[in-house]
């Protein structure tokens, strides 16, 4: 299963909702305003870094760049993908669950 989260972890509970119910080993894609959760300096970094040990965590590059962050500012253990990579994740990982 691929879980997607598109909201800022500071504004909404979507990321926490996802982390609380994504079974170990499942994949999580952060895109749109959720990309902030993937950045190194944010106060969410420890929580998300920990999550990246239990899950395969991805972040959408185009949304990251749009918001002024680059790949070097992404937490260790998180993989940057583009829209092609988003499509591949959906194709490979089965059911998609959007935490809206």
């Amino acid at each position: 299963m691929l879980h997607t989260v598109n909201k800022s972890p500071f504004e909404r509970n979507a990321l926490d909702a996802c982390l609380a119910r994504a079974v170990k080993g499942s994949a999580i894609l952060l895109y749109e305003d959720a990309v902030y959760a993937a950045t190194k300096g944010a106060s969410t970094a420890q929580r998300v870094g920990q999550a990246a040990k239990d899950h395969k965590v991805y972040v959408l590059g185009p949304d990251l760049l749009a918001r002024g962050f680059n790949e070097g500012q992404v937490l260790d253990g998180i993989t940057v993908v583009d829209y092609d990579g988003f499509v591949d994740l959906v194709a490979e990982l089965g059911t998609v669950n959007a935490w809206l």
Partner: protein
Amino acid sequence: MKFGILVNEGPYNHQASDSAYMFAKAALAKGHEIYRVFFYYDGVNNANKLSEPPSDDRNVIKRWSELAKEHKLDLVVCVAAALRRGIKDELLAEGFRISGLGQLIESGIQCDRQVVFGD
């Protein structure tokens, strides 16, 4: 692989329709099939052909129409959600059609994957 896409929010106010479009384009470029794009909730507003964004901005509605034309996409607007919000046949941009929610469920049944974009 056969994909269904669900768009839950209207154009411009939320990025959902933009993200769905970029995803659809990438999927098509990779040779996947887009079985249907279904517009629900405020997503029905993506079909309003009267939309006129500033000239230096993207045209969310037109982009869907063009992608539909190029790839024979089925763009379906939910009739109940559309009636509530005042989206009727006379407003439909090229390539969109209005139909029942059953079209979404059928897409869920027929497709290998259903991908939801919303707020």
